[in-house]
């Protein structure tokens, strides 16, 4: 539990952080909340020579609405999301997911950008990122680029961010009209991470589901979109039987993880059960 020696620089701005990254390349790691990086360093799994602290850059920390879009700065903490009035109003999925994340100390320090850039396959945020069809704004030497949520989570602990890039912002268009959202999670009893985590955001028209998006975390090597569930839900009635039938597609085409606590079969089953429950909760909120 003793890390290797490293240097530390608190970046003053995003440009400052970018130039430090360009200079130190693979020797450097960005530090935001530190809740994934520091434990990895203590176990010497990560041995960066330099930490570039971006948590003090003020213009990376915000939650705001602009031209119908919600924009969240990458170093916004879980606690800020949990307690955001704006999000509570237009996208309660995120505050709800935040309450499921770690404990109060973790939520006070950990950041949404740090979490999704780490791309832990059992982290909570990726499910919501996918369910909201969010876009990630990355900034690098050549300027900004936008990465769609479906492209962002590449594989185990690998996001689409390139070396030298910094995740600047998460943005999405909140649901319009009548909508319902839910995040349902089966916590691992030791780690508290998601054995299964299901985020649902759906809109309704009359008594039917107009559109539904479902993000799944914890089940596979990376968070994914449950496309089969989404297709089955589009235009479907919101009765229990229909929701259950849709939820059965939660792990279609997926090779579920297997570990000491839960086998692949069990995880697949849990994904289906938790998807049904999340759909039911979201549907009831939309009424």
């Amino acid at each position: 539990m003793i890390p290797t020696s490293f240097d530390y620089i608190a970046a003053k701005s995003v440009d400052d952080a970018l130039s430090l990254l360009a200079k130190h390349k693979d020797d450097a790691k960005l530090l935001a909340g530190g809740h994934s990086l520091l434990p990895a360093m203590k176990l010497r799994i990560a041995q960066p020579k330099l930490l570039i602290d971006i948590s003090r850059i003020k213009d990376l920390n915000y939650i705001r609405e602009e031209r119908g879009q919600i924009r969240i700065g990458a170093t916004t903490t879980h606690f800020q999301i949990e307690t955001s009035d704006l999000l509570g109003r237009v996208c309660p999925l995120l505050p709800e997911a935040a309450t499921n994340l770690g404990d109060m100390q973790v939520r006070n320090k950990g950041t949404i950008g740090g979490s999704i850039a780490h791309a832990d396959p059992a982290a909570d945020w990726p499910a919501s990122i996918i369910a909201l069809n969010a876009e990630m704004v990355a900034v690098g030497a050549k300027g900004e680029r936008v990465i769609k949520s479906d492209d962002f989570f590449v594989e185990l602990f690998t996001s689409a961010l390139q070396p030298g890039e910094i995740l600047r912002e998460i943005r999405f268009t909140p649901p319009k009209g009548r909508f319902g959202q839910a995040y349902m999670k089966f916590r691992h009893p030791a780690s508290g991470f998601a054995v299964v985590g299901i985020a649902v955001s759906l809109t309704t028209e009359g008594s039917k589901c107009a559109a539904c998006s479902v993000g799944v975390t914890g089940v596979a090597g990376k968070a994914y979109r449950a496309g089969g569930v989404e297709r089955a839900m589009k235009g479907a009635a919101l009765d229990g039987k229909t929701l259950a039938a849709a939820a059965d597609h939660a792990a279609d085409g997926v090779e579920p993880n297997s570990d000491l606590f839960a086998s692949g079969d069990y995880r697949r089953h849990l994904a289906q059960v938790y998807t049904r429950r999340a759909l039911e909760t979201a549907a009831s909120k939309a009424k």
Partner: protein
Amino acid sequence: MAEKTVGKPIKRTEDPRLIQGLAHYVDDIKLPDTLHAVFLRSIYAHARIKSIDVTTAQKLPGVVAVYTGKDIAQKIGPVPCGAAIPEMKVPDHRVLATTKVYWVGHPVAMVVAENKYTARDAIDLIEVDYDELPAVVDEEKAADPKSPVIHEKFGSNIAYKLTAGEGDIEAALKAADKVVKHKILHRRLAPIAMEPRGVLARYYPGEQELTLWTSTQIPHLCRTQVALMLGIPENKLRLIAPEVGGGFGSKLNVYAEEAMLGYASMQTGRPVKWIEGRRENMQATIHGRGQTGYIEIGCKRDGTITGFRYNVFADMGSYFQLLTPAIPTLTGLMLSGCYKIPAIQMNVTATFTNKMSTDAYRGAGRPEATYVIERAMDLVAAELRMDPVELRRKNFPAPFDNNSFKTATGLFYDSGNYQAALDKALKMADYNRLREDQRKARSEGRLIGIGVSTYVEICAMGPSSAMPAGGWESATVRIEPTGKVTILTGASPHGQGEETSFAQIAADQLGVEVNDLTVIHGDTAVVQYGIGTFGSRGTAVGGTAVYLALQKLKEKAGKLAAHLLECENVSFSDGKFCPAAAKAKGASVPEPVVPVGQAPGGSLPEPNPSGKQISIQEIALAAHLAKNIPPDMEPGLSATTFFEPKNFTFPFGTHIAVVEIDPETGQVHFQRYIAVDDCGRQINPLLVHGQIHGGIVQSLGQALYEEVVYDDQGQLTTGTLMDYAVPRAAHVPWFELDSTETLSPVNPMGVKGVGEAGSIGATPAIVAAVVDAMSPFGIRHLDMPIKPENLWRIINKKAGAA
């Protein structure tokens, strides 16, 4: 007058410093010029060491010394084992590995450097060439003659075999109408004290004295052993257990690191510190439990138990720590539970495995006993289609006292009224109504389970004849010239709250305020020899020593009071002595003898007895001034006692768990948790509740979550708290607690002890509740930890079949 405090739930005097972060654990003690030690530990479960190359590590700037087994294994005595079983094999347990490594975490080298970062960096520079050997992981397979052998000179992995118990077990089982058999597993558990181990050693070359601060439950026993290991006079070793952040038995031990740190300080002439990391703690601090058992219980058709046999493979790990081989013998002692069983037999096969040693973890062998007898009773109830409560009641002895209930395990229980605790718990639970509700819920397809455990445990360890190193405890009570009271206890509280409860005992005896007392423990240079805190003995043995020392002290104070009051006899109440015939009137809170800042010119005021009464504080002053004391009396006012109990004590109780299982996911949800515990006289019910809460939580962890898992190669797969599930607040139900009070005849206060009750009584209740909930699927037993996937598989299969 000072209000009586014994029996009152007063808040712990320890808490303000703990809550405010003002306490001093080993790591909080900073000495100038301190070096830091880090250990290189084996990454293999079983391997031959071909070579160790430390040359690069030694050259790293800041590294002061690198020690390997070759350097010091023969210069430091073996890690001690205090337990002895006839014909047991004792491996030569050196502080560092020499020719072979025996478990993942086995220390191979120690680096001492200017700081812990350099020491840790140097660890990566040590090159060890291993020849990996097949690992022995399962305690039952370890006994197989075909198994690889860990300690080659023993020729097998069997550490010892032992048969215990009384009565003709063969005849008893033959006479039974039914014999129920089952395999029962007790997984390995990690004690997970919040504060891991830690040692700070400082050698004073001029004085030739070594001071060792170590996070231990047994400062004096540890000092004796470490002095022997290092070959230094015991009176030149001062051992201090500063604030200790929990132990649960894991610090009732003497570890290789304690001696090695002392050695390193003696060699370097500088203070040396080591603080265990959590991963090290999982690998190299003792584990608990670890038994694979087979039960056979015989019963008559009416439920009368005729005999009970327990054949068990007990997992020792690769070496013995302080009490490793003794733990299964405690299981054997308690197999009768709280039932009349005429014949009992335990056959232990203790085996070496390529794992960390097992040893005492909260309950230490007794939870295993309670678990197997309680599971056996439930299996019998299921077999006979009897209510598990009725079966238990049928086999209870009548309420008893005077150490009069003899078991076929050779014990005499001190006192018990098992019916009363059961009745109270049933009433709190509204048991008949619960069963009614369960029937209704079942008809709706819901899986509700009710589990009842009636337990008895053995604690207040104990008579010296039954203990490896003394079963007594010591106390000194003295009243300082200013009237303040100091208690020196040989017990070594580390979270139990005895600074508060011992002060309560003394405050009531002396008629002073709790705040006028201080309780000192853990420093061998200050406190007379003591045994320590474990086995739920702190209050029953250590508290009794305090109580008896107080009687001695009051006797002397009374003689001095009679002298000063110029009367034959005195009586003592509310902190004041007065002539025996008269009563102290207008007794009030005793004023401090020396109000702060008012002592004239640093001198002390003369005692001023009114002629009718004199306070104990005034007596203390008179005793120290010694100007007017009886000619045959020694000055000063202190008394020391070494209390030797004549028997163990046997606390008991009833725990009831009510759970509901989510049939879709197999998750277990608690509906209620009821416990009635009888720990004899309660000094402080708040502390009793705290102990019960913690014990139930650890039981709950054992029943549903916890298991130290080594894979087939002996790799520790639950090496962090990300994998090993310790219960958190969100896992824990609301506890409905009450108690009965059956005084123990073993000590004058009637105290039994409560430190381990929760961890003994709760596990079987929780498992029974889950089994009961699953009984519609034909389930009669489930092994711990009961994971949701297991339940889902059972439910799923049956649902598919139906």
